[in-house]
């Protein structure tokens, strides 16, 4: 069927099953914007800034498991997507970004709104394309979705010159891709799987260390089976939050810089670190030289380059987490493997009793930020809830005090640490899950980077709830300045009163509520969660609360500042319970 490139693109997106895209029009994408008006399948969410489009697509992908799709114009439209693309790249989120480009015959002449977006995004995309001939378009779109969603997922950018969008094409969508250099490995090597099972059967103090790969692979059922079969304690990274139910007795918290002490003690003492879909990030490992030094390591990842990158591995298994965990469970079942971690779990439980997460009680009307997160948790635990976060203290408190029970209900910027991610990600998540409650746990600094997206939420009837832990500081920056820069608060003071977040919410025709004492908290949160539209709750929290415990940058993870006093794990080993296990 003959049509123009823009219509072919819409046809291709429909073939890919795309139901919603996030974007912003402009000169060179007008042919495409014209074509999408006629699509019955494609919904388009008009954001207020292109960065919001990429973060929204990212949030959509995290909660649905389907690729997020973005459409923007050339030049500034394209460059505004860069942060969102980098964010998705760091966190391995599947996304396909379509950017307009000036006509092929003027590329390279510094034409109006020209930018070399394929050059700019080369290091932050899994792959990218500049389509120079409309006849390549169907094949390129097919490849873009294939590359974005298979293997280790990631963002793919497709740059479309305006003459390509207008060019005539006899459209036929290809059924297969031809990528001789791209063949991800899904099935783990049988011998390696057996070795992993051997180690699991021999280990006295094993520990499952699960990350975002479990979520992208959809391997949470297999993870739980393995944990329960062998009674393995499980720690999930920030990216893996929700991969294992946090109220489960085998769940032992998040590792690393702001992990609980008992989690970091367990990692330091384990004799088998069974790592799945993680990348031994520095925020998890702290000082690598003292990270899990008593441990053998099994590392399962679909990206071979992650295996052995930061930490030498005893049993490397390249493959998809779902396939490999399934194979390990089968192997253990075949051997009638029995759990042998009862004493090890008692040690961890003892640490858990002695060194729980802890925060001081507020005095008088003080609202403690940790308490706000605990109340959000209590008020949402019985309904399908997505938690998005901004970046900074708000994010770490959300990690520590929100006990997520379900996979793919978490949208937080991991590797890049992007302030301003939470609100647009929440909007994207809500667009993907219309019936879920979507809550953005925000900081006042991050929220201000993207607050214009309240308009998007309101106009598109995406009733996200923003709960601002408003301390009037760039809280994490202030915390580091307090701890490591002699309390010199250089440029981290924002003030709690400007802007007035209640009025700001109202300006966007959203519900705005303020909380200034603990008594008001439940009422305000409930009102926001029950409200049919978007809502903003401005929680005036105590201003100089720190996220504890904390591993100093570059320190060993068992030596933590703050929290319940307790030294490095070597000093925690002298009680009788431990000696029993250590025999």
């Amino acid at each position, binding site marked *: 069927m003959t049509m123009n490139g823009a219509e072919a693109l819409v046809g291709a997106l429909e073939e890919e099953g795309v139901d919603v895209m996030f974007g912003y029009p402009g000169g060179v994408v007008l042919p495409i914007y014209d074509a999408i008006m006629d699509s019955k399948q494609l919904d388009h969410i008009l954001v207020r800034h292109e960065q919001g489009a990429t973060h929204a697509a990212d949030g959509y992908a995290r909660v649905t498991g389907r690729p997020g799709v973005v459409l923007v114009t050339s030049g500034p439209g394209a460059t505004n997507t860069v942060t969102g693309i980098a964010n998705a790249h760091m966190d391995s989120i599947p996304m396909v970004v379509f950017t307009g480009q000036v006509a092929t015959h003027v590329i390279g002449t510094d034409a109006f709104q020209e930018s070399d977006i394929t*050059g700019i995004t080369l*290091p932050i995309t899994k792959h990218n394309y500049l389509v120079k001939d409309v006849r390549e378009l169907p094949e390129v779109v097919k490849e873009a979705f294939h590359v974005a969603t298979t293997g280790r997922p990631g963002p793919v950018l497709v740059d479309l010159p305006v003459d390509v969008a207008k060019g005539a094409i006899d459209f036929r969508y290809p059924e297969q891709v031809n990528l001789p*250099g791209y063949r991800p490995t899904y099935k783990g090597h049988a011998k390696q799987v057996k070795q992993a099972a051997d180690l699991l059967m021999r280990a006295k103090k094993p520990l499952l260390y699960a990350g975002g790969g479990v979520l992208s692979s959809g391997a949470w059922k297999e993870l739980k089976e393995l944990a329960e079969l062998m009674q393995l304690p499980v720690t999930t990274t920030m990216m893996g939050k929700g991969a294992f139910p946090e109220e489960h007795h085998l769940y032992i918290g998040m590792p690393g810089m702001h992990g609980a002490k008992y989690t970091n003690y367990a990692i330091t003492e384990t004799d088998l670190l069974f790592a799945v879909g993680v990348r031994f990030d520095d925020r998890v490992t702290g000082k690598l030289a003292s990270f899990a030094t008593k441990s053998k390591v099994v590392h399962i990842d679909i*990206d071979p*380059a992650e295996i052995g*990158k930061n930490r030498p591995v005893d049993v490397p298994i390249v493959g998809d987490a779902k396939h490999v965990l399934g194979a390990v469970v089968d192997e253990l079942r075949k051997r009638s493997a029995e759990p042998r971690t009862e004493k090890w779990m008692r040690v961890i439980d003892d640490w858990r009793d002695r060194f729980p997460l802890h925060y001081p009680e507020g005095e008088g009307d003080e609202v403690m930020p940790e308490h706000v997160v605990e109340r959000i948790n209590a008020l949402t635990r019985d309904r399908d809830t997505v938690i998005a976060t901004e970046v900074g203290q708000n994010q770490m408190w959300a990690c520590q005090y929100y006990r997520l029970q379900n996979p793919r209900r978490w949208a937080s910027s991991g590797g890049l640490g992007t302030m301003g991610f939470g609100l647009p990600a929440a909007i994207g998540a809500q667009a993907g899950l219309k019936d879920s409650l979507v809550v953005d746990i925000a900081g006042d600094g991050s929220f201000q980077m993207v607050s214009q997206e309240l308009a998007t939420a309101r106009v598109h009837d995406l009733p996200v709830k923003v709960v601002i832990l408003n301390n009037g500081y760039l809280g994490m920056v202030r915390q580091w300045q307090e701890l490591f820069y002699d309390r010199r608060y250089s440029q981290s003071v924002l003030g709690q009163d400007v802007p007035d977040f209640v009025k700001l919410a109202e300006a966007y025709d959203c519900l705005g509520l303020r909380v200034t004492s603990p008594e008001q908290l439940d009422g305000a949160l409930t009102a926001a969660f029950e409200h049919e539209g978007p809502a903003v709750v401005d929680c005036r929290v105590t201003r100089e609360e720190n996220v504890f415990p904390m591993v100093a940058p570059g320190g060993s993870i068992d030596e933590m500042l703050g929290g319940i006093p307790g030294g490095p794990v070597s000093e925690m080993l002298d009680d009788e319970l431990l000696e029993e296990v250590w025999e």
Partner: protein
Amino acid sequence: MTGTTRHTLSVLVENKPGVLQRVSGLFARRGFNIDSLAVGPTEDPNLSRMTIVVHAENTPLEQISKQLHKLVNIIKIQDLDPADMVDRELVLFKVNAPAAVRAELIELANIFRARIIDVGRNSLTIEATGTTDKLQAMEDLLRGYGIRELARTGKIALARGSKENG
């Protein structure tokens, strides 16, 4: 081969725009050291071969190779065994050549199986091919006469015939 940390990678890539940029960009942003990179078409017009000499001192070769493999346009990577490969490089030397030393220089070129490809009033331009070591030896000798300009292609290499898998 000088030192054990230097490797010659023969990399088969799809002949598409931007592939060279993808490869060189990867080396730059991951902090991998590159000694030389030569690229050209192969017997198959859809494919190009890059010969990359890398310095795997701070980064293990395995990590370099795995990261390269992640580039969608890369088909195949071989770490060539120095004992089982043939490699060549081409160099052009423009050397000071007053009449008094011309004969000497021509003799030297002959010894290295090099050719004089341009003659100026006070200079000779010599073309030489060979292994990196041979060309280095020649450069060291010519330095005494005064090298005005020098250009080299970077190494290209193939596995020897006995290893017919590439």
